[in-house]
């Protein structure tokens, strides 16, 4: 029991948000009379939140470097508009249009990265300007009107599902994916634990470790089962999954990721250790531009239209997701996984409150309080540990 409380205390930040997420889910599951976790609603949750989660992945990198990006909503709208121009007005093939759109996102990111990294204008100002600039450009490109509809293939990004193997009944692909994931997951965890033991690092007790594995396996398979009973795996979920895996890998296992953390943790020390701080900052913004472009494409595909108002306030949701997920406003701390959990907390809150029938006024207020309390909780914990 003592080890358990110690374990909990040391990892309260990491587990705290997961616990909060579970709490919120249970709460709304009860309040909505079981609607929240209905297979159709789970699929909906994924579709509704995908574009924010994609932004949160890029945003957490920006926040780790100690910056902020207020322009991502406008960039998403701008890229959505460009893609509509290409596909709807110019009849370009969706593949080509997507590639061009991503390039536009990268260019926009490079533009902002240049001002932040090399001219050293605070990111808050650069991206505030970008927020206005790209919103304006969106309206210019769209001439103030919505453009629609997109070609069918493009819409599939947001509305399609992975085709099933069998016919009728449960979706086999989804079930299989759950099992494969479970196996990979277990192998990984066991190997990690063995390595930690070998080097005499702290590990959690065996009983707890097995309990953790079992819980996670149940969650994964329950989740894929739910998907299987509806329409299977949404395309967008595969994209999201890939992004999460790739970015977690980049941030934890690659030189680039290490340099991002080092830069955010102590810019001067990182610079004197040979980290090319300007270059890293620049590329983090380029990356944000590309992810904002992806987010814009997903949103346009989901709406099946590019509108001048698309992406409004996305940046705020993405930033909130990062902070709820444990990122530090002064840089150096944060994880992709945390940002995703933070994004899900916001997403479930949104969805749950809508299901309960709470007005948009109350929803905004409650979300604001949740953000404030999550960060206050974080700071309280840090201070307690420091003493």
């Amino acid at each position, binding site marked *: 029991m003592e080890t358990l409380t110690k374990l909990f205390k040391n990892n309260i930040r990491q587990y705290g948000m997961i616990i909060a997420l579970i709490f919120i889910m249970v709460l709304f599951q009860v309040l909505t009379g079981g609607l929240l976790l209905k297979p159709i609603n789970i699929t909906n949750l994924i579709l509704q939140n995908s574009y924010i989660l994609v932004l949160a992945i890029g945003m957490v990198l920006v926040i780790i470097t100690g910056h902020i990006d207020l322009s991502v909503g406008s960039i998403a709208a701008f890229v959505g508009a460009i893609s509509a121009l290409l596909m709807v007005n110019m009849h370009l093939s969706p593949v080509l249009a997507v590639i061009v759109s991503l390039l536009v996102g990268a260019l926009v990111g490079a533009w902002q990265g240049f001002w932040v990294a090399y001219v050293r204008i605070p990111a808050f100002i650069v991206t505030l300007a970008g927020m206005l600039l790209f919103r304006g450009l969106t309206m210019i490109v769209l001439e103030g009107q919505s453009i629609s509809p997109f070609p069918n293939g493009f819409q599939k990004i947001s509305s399609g599902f992975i085709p099933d193997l069998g016919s009728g009944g449960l979706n086999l692909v989804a079930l299989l994916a759950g099992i494969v994931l479970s196996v990979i997951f277990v192998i990984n965890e066991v190997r990690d634990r063995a390595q930690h033991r070998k080097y005499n690092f*702290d590990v959690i007790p065996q009983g707890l470790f097995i309990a953790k594995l079992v819980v996670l396996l149940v969650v994964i398979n329950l989740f894929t089962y739910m998907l299987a009973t509806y329409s299977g795996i949404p395309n967008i979920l595969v994209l999201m999954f890939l992004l999460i895996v790739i970015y977690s890998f980049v941030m934890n296992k690659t030189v680039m990721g290490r340099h991002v953390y080092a830069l955010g943790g*102590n810019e001067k020390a990182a610079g004197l250790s040979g980290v090319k701080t300007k270059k890293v900052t620049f590329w983090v913004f380029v990356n944000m531009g590309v992810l904002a472009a992806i987010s814009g494409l997903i949103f346009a595909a989901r709406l099946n239209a590019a509108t001048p108002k698309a992406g409004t306030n996305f940046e705020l949701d993405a930033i909130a997701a990062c902070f709820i997920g444990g990122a530090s406003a002064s840089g150096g701390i944060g994880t992709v996984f945390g940002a995703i959990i933070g994004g899900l907390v916001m997403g479930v809150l949104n969805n749950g409150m809508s299901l309960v029938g709470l007005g948009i006024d109350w929803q905004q207020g409650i979300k604001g309080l949740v953000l404030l309390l999550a960060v206050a909780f974080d700071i309280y914990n840090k201070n307690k540990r420091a003493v």
Partner: protein
Amino acid sequence: MSEVILEMRNITKTFPGVKALQNVNIQVRAGEIHALCGENGAGKSTLMKVLSGVYPYGTYEGEIRFEGNVCQFKDIKMSEELGIVIIHQELALIPYLSIAENIFLGNERASGGIMNWKETILQTREQLKKVGLKESPTTLAGSIGVGKQQLVEIAKALSKKVKLLILDEPTAALNEDDSENLLQLMLEFKRQGIASILISHKLNEISKVADSVTILRDGQTIETLDMHKDEVTEDRIISGMVGRDLTNRYPAHQSKIGDVILEVKDWTVYHEQQTGRKVLDGIHMNIRKGEIVGIAGLMGSGRTELAMSIFGKAYGKNITGQLFKDGRPIQNNTVNQAIENGFAYVTEDRKNYGLILMDDIKRNISLTGLGKLSSNMVVDDKKEILVAEEMRKKLKIKTPNILQKTGNLSGGNQQKVVLSKWIFAEPDILILDEPTRGIDVGAKYEIYSIINQLADEGKGVLVISSELPEILGICDRIYVMSAGRITGEVKREDATQETLMKYMTRTGGAQHGNTNQTV
């Protein structure tokens, strides 16, 4: 002789593990200029912080009497009310406020919270006249030179009806004209009956203006000399400051010295903010393989600036001069280039410039050498752990495991992590800036052993240190710097603390040779 205005008796101040001050006594007479001398770390600043209430009553032992009354200051405000004002080495002016606003900051001329600007400006003019500064009261403090800023600080002190003015290294950042001005001003205050305590490393200034001098060493009062009665020479003060012998605090070591590995020629560097001010002026120096070369110099002499400007121009503007490694000219234009050229720089400020405190030991050690631990940009975790473990054992880093945050380690262990990082980068030339600052004696010995070992591997090692015994204890050859120039080069056999201190306190560089004037 006038009466005693300030008396500090048996002052003892301990920090965890260190006795910073031990039964220190000092008496300052009304209207005199009292100099306070001592090496870096002798306890001068600590003593002044006790006096001004930065360390409040209760955190030290001993008694302070000012104008005959026992004082128990709880904060700076209380000491200032009695007329004791400190002017710190780092100026505390707010650059975007005007001179007038700075002078009356916290002491505003106002009624009912409404500023009385007319009064503020008029009184500022009066104060500025007293210090001889011809600037408009509405000029921004950031737009005038350091010398003038110093005068503004003094004017600020005067506005508080100062009786005892404490100047901590007031001329460290000033050129000769401004320094001279300031000294004249101190003499003028003396005529008006204001007592001053002058903390300075520049002995010629002390002999010029001081009436008496108290010497501190290792937190103890050594002696107080009367400049008018006693036969006080600079040598006399120096021997008081350093008079301590070397015990075997340094591992025995015989260097195997090879060819010249680094040569620095005509290295000149300008200040980063105050363009036009030379921080380093025509430095020539070299390091040989297997040699440990020391740089001695007082704070502000340009030691760190030299190290950082060589290490990829990490400091300074308009850097000119050449670097030769193994006889071939090299370019160190960025930190990365310097690292590729085989340089390593262990900073004097490990918390702000050396470590990422929120990261663990492993990640700090691997940061510079990540390229060696990765293929296709993917870091090999296992290799990284092995490297960090090896360093932990080799350098005896005391920690439960290498996943500890470096912010939680003691100073000595933090320094070992920084050293590990650079040892892993496998440099040819190591520049160690204050490698044992803030480290306990046991860990110091271990660090010296590591330095010796690095030299034995054929690396060139440059050690910058404020502690003369340390320089004398571990270096084969010593360059002495003062005011951005090399004022002396001494072999270990020929070096004593006295000779080094003499070169260190030279102003104007070796070529002038007019520094031994006594008044």
